[in-house]
Each structure stands twice: as structure tokens, then as C-alpha cells.
């Protein structure tokens, strides 16, 4: 199957039920190369399910996902892996693989399951490691580096995979404040390089600062989708999370979101 080098991922009216419980009831979403899209929603809103469906890991009960106008289900597993990469939440591994070994796993779709890594594979791994600035950690066990460094290793693996679209599950979780901001800058620069990034997040400020577009997921439905500055009103956020928040305009025109605790609401 020949796919354009700027494939667009589209979810059409996704519905999904699991053991009789409706998780998604009409969720639509688009991801284009070159943009950072944030998916915002409360716990249990269906974010992870939608992510798994977008990655082709889960078949929705109804509706379909297309990549370059071709249904996801029509792609061979290996070709799909060359087009969309999954960056999971930072985790630990049962075995102490080195960072280089972890990133090297990203070459499996390109080289095939049985082949040994070629010179091209090694070059791609080195490039991805260099791009994320973790070369000094390349031979350190993944189990011995910090959460922020693990996140970088997992993103490097996605780059080594050669896919233009990256789907990230809460990339900021487990990162300290400085690393969260560094991550926003990294995702922005990847988008400039032409990568399309979809990430779930729990931080409205990260959306306002680092995303081109935001989709709000509530009770299995996308209730708003558009420019973060337009979508993230205090009203919508308060409704989404069931708590009071107030957008604050900074002197330079940018906005941030401040929570309102009960005693401050008067």
C-alpha cells in the first residue's frame, strides 16, 4: 500500500462499548503532520480508549479510523507501525535494557522480526538518540534513569520508528515541572520538523502554551475542538472537570488557567 508522506489520521464518529458500558459515543478527531493536538478530559472520559482505537490497538464497536483515507484495519500491522508510533506513559521494564536497546526496538517495523539490525537501523537509532540529546545515556540501563529521561528514550524510540505521527499517552505525567516545560518545547520543535503529535494531558496550561489545537472529551463525546484560546474558556473547563477555574490574561496577551478553591469563589 502506497501512502503519502503526509498522511492524515481521522477518527470518524467512533462509538465503543466495553462489557455493556458505553465508553465512547460519537468521538471524531483529526491529526495532521506538523501540528500538536491535545486531548483533554477528566479521568474516565474515554481518552485512553480513544487513543488505543486511533493506534489500531482496539477495534471500535462502530465508526472507523482512517489513515491517508484508508481504514486502519486494512493496513498490515508492520506498515501501520511505520506510520504511527505509540509513546506510552513512562513505565518500568522487567529487564534492564539499555536506552539504546529500547530505542532499537523502534527499528523492528523497518527491519522485520527476524533480521538483525542493519547499519541503517543503527544509524537511525543514533540519530534519534542524538535528536533527543540523550547520547550520554545511550548505554545506561533504562531501569536506572529518571522518569524524564525515560520519556525522552520512549520518544526517541518513536522517532527511530520513522513514523510521522506520534500518539502520546500523558507524556507529562511523572515529570517534574522543569521537564514538563522542556517536553512542551521538544514537542513544539518536533511539530516544526513535520511530526504530527496527539497527546492526552491533564494540564490546561500545557495546552494553552504548547498545542495548536485542543479537543475536549466528555462522557465519550468530543464536545469542543479548535484553537486552545477559543476552546478553553473558564466555563468549559469548569464543566469538564466539575471544579471552578478562571482564565487569567497575562500582560503579554497569553492566557493561563488558575484554579479557584471554594473559599476564593465568593
Amino acid at each position, binding site marked *: 500500500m502506497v501512502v503519502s508522506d503526509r498522511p492524515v489520521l481521522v477518527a470518524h464518529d467512533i462509538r465503543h462499548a466495553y462489557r455493556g458500558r458505553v465508553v465512547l459515543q460519537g468521538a471524531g478527531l483529526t491529526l495532521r503532520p506538523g501540528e500538536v493536538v491535545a486531548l483533554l478530559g477528566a479521568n474516565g472520559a474515554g481518552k485512553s480508549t480513544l487513543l488505543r482505537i486511533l*493506534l489500531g490497538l482496539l477495534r471500535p464497536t462502530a465508526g472507523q479510523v482512517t489513515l491517508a483515507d484508508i481504514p486502519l484495519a486494512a493496513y498490515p500491522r508492520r506498515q501501520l*507501525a511505520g506510520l504511527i508510533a505509540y509513546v506510552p506513559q513512562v*513505565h518500568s*521494564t522487567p529487564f534492564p*535494557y539499555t536506552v539504546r*536497546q529500547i530505542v532499537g*526496538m523502534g527499528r*523492528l517495523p523497518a527491519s522485520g522480526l527476524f533480521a*538483525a539490525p542493519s547499519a541503517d537501523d543503527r544509524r537511525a537509532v543514533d540519530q534519534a538518540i542524538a535528536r533527543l540529546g540523550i547520547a550520554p545515556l545511550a548505554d545506561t540501563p533504562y531501569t*536506572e534513569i529518571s522518569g524524564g529521561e525515560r520519556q525522552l528514550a520512549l520518544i526517541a524510540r518513536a522517532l527511530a520508528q520513522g513514523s510521522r505521527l506520534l500518539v502520546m499517552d500523558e507524556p507529562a505525567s511523572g515529570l517534574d515541572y522543569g521537564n514538563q516545560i522542556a517536553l512542551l518545547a521538544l514537542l513544539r520543535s518536533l511539530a516544526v520538523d513535520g511530526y504530527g503529535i496527539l497527546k492526552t494531558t491533564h494540564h490546561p496550561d500545557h495546552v494553552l502554551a504548547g498545542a495548536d489545537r485542543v479537543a475536549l472529551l466528555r462522557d465519550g463525546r468530543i464536545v469542543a475542538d479548535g484553537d486552545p484560546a477559543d476552546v478553553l474558556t473558564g466555563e468549559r473547563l469548569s464543566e469538564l472537570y466539575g471544579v471552578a477555574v478562571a482564565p487569567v490574561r497575562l500582560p503579554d496577551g497569553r492566557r493561563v488557567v488558575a484554579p479557584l478553591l471554594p473559599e476564593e469563589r465568593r
Partner: protein
Amino acid sequence: MPAWLRLGPALLLGVAAAMLAALCVGRYPLPPADILRFLGAAAGLWEMPTREFDTLFNLIVRIRLPRVLAAVLVGMSLATAGAAFQGVFRNPLVSPGLLGVLAGAAFGAALGIVLDLPWAMVQLLAFLMGVAAVTAGVGIATLFGNGSVIMMVLGGVISGALFTSLLSMVKYVADPYNQLPAIVHWLMGSLALADLDQIGVLIIPIGIGVALLCTLGRALDALTMGDDEARALGVPVQALRILIVALATLISALTVSLAGIIGWVGLIVPHIARLLVGPGNAALLPTSAALGACFLLAADGISRTVATTEIPIGIVTELIGVVAFVLVLGRVRKGWL
């Protein structure tokens, strides 16, 4: 270059040296030079007095070679199967018996002994029941779960318990003077009954099984990261998992039919291999195979030299295994737990 090809020469050399050493030890110790002289004479490179040749032929080829070859086959099978299982189940404390293959094979052999079947049939029954036990466990996992790792482990626990109770039943009805001791002795493992004809047959499926597992190393690495990640990396998770479990079960069940139940090899050897070459399965699986062969050669050497009568090898591997495990635990700092 694939890892097994890169490591191959060193691993083969190590196993060959261990085999040579194993041919030397025994009730009548032979210097390595005698064995090399004999091999040269057998290959027609030089002459050797007929009487000496016959004596050496009897000692080396008839008596020692079958058990040396059996030790190599059994050791590499159990160690490779153990390393593969540890990867599939994402747990470094797993051994090849996890899904019930040993319990099933033990029942099969005991049943064969009680039914007074010929030895070859006892071995066949052990193999078949080992495979049946794993099939039952995996079947339970697929039927009542979605074939996930945790369901497979639970299925294996159920199937292992079933076949262990069936084994107890067979032991209970066995004739306590001849059959019961035969069962108990067989359960301790022994290479004494290995013969060259049988080894000539088993070397093919075991060789193929171990070699195939060794080629799956990189895919197994991805599998240890979790199902979703492996799938997103283009790995056909379910098919790969079933294939690896099937191959590991096949070679483990064959070792049981050859040598009874030999514990600890599949648990301890992959750990030692991991300390040497790291956790990447492309290098770990062939290294485990070679170390497993050496480990069992050493255990067999001990089992037939330390006392005047032979000690069952399963007891030796358990004793060495416990000590080795404590030492390995002490040396491991990089958290694989």
C-alpha cells in the same frame, strides 16, 4: 550480523571444551590427550593399537558419549525455554514448568510405568502428557480470558495442579516394590538411560526448536514491553506468544522424555547469561543455550563422580541451583525484579 552468529564461535568453543572435559571425568578418569588421540584414530588420522582403541571406544562412545550428548541437549533446551518463558511472561522468576509441562510429563511417565509399557512408550507418553498439560492451560486461558499473560499463568496453575493430583493418584495405585521406586527415581531425573539412537532422533526437533527460539530474540524484546507497545511496534503479539510457548513446551517436554525432571536449569541459567551479555534476547537466548549445556555437563560430572553410586542429576542441579541463585542474587544490582 545476528547476535547468535557473532557470539556463535565463542559459545560453540565453550560447549566443545565442556564436552571434552565431561568425557574425561568418571569412575576411570581419562586425560584429555587420550580422548584427542582416540578421536584422531577414529577419524583415520593416525594408528592406535586395536586393544586400546576398543577399550577407549567402549568407554568414550558407548558409556560416556550418550550422557554427554543428552546433557547438552537437555541443558540447552531447558535454559533456552526458561529464558524464552521469562521474556514472554515478563518475569525473571519464571521457569519452563510454569504452564504445567513438567507436571503433565511426570504424570505421563508415571502412568506408563504403572501400565508396564515398554520404555519408549513411557517416554512418548511423558512427552504427550507434557504437551497436553500446556495445551489445557493455554486452552483455559483462551476460553475464559482473552489469552492474556495473567490468564495463561492462571491456566498453567490450574493445569499443573490437575496433573499433579493425577500423578499422586497413579503413585497411590502403583505397586510399591517395583513401580513406585521407578516413578520416584525417574522424577529425580537421570541421564543414565540415554542411548545414542534416541539422541539421534531427538537432536533434530530440539535443534530446530532451540534455533527458532534464538531467531525470535528481537521480537521477544518488544513483547516484554507489554502487549500494546509490542503491537504498536508491529509485532503480532498473540501469534508470537503462542509460537514461543509452543516451541519452549516442545523442547522442555522432549527433555523430560529423555532424562526425567531436572529442575532449576531453566530458572538459574538465564540469570547467569543475563549477567554476561545483558537482557537483549537476541544475545541472551543463544548464550543461555550454551551455558545450559555447560551447566548440565558440570552437574552430570558431579552426579557420577562425587559418590561411588550415581546421584540423580535432578538433586545435583537443585543443590547447585540454590547456591548459584543466592550468589546471583547477591551480585545483581541492576533491578530486574
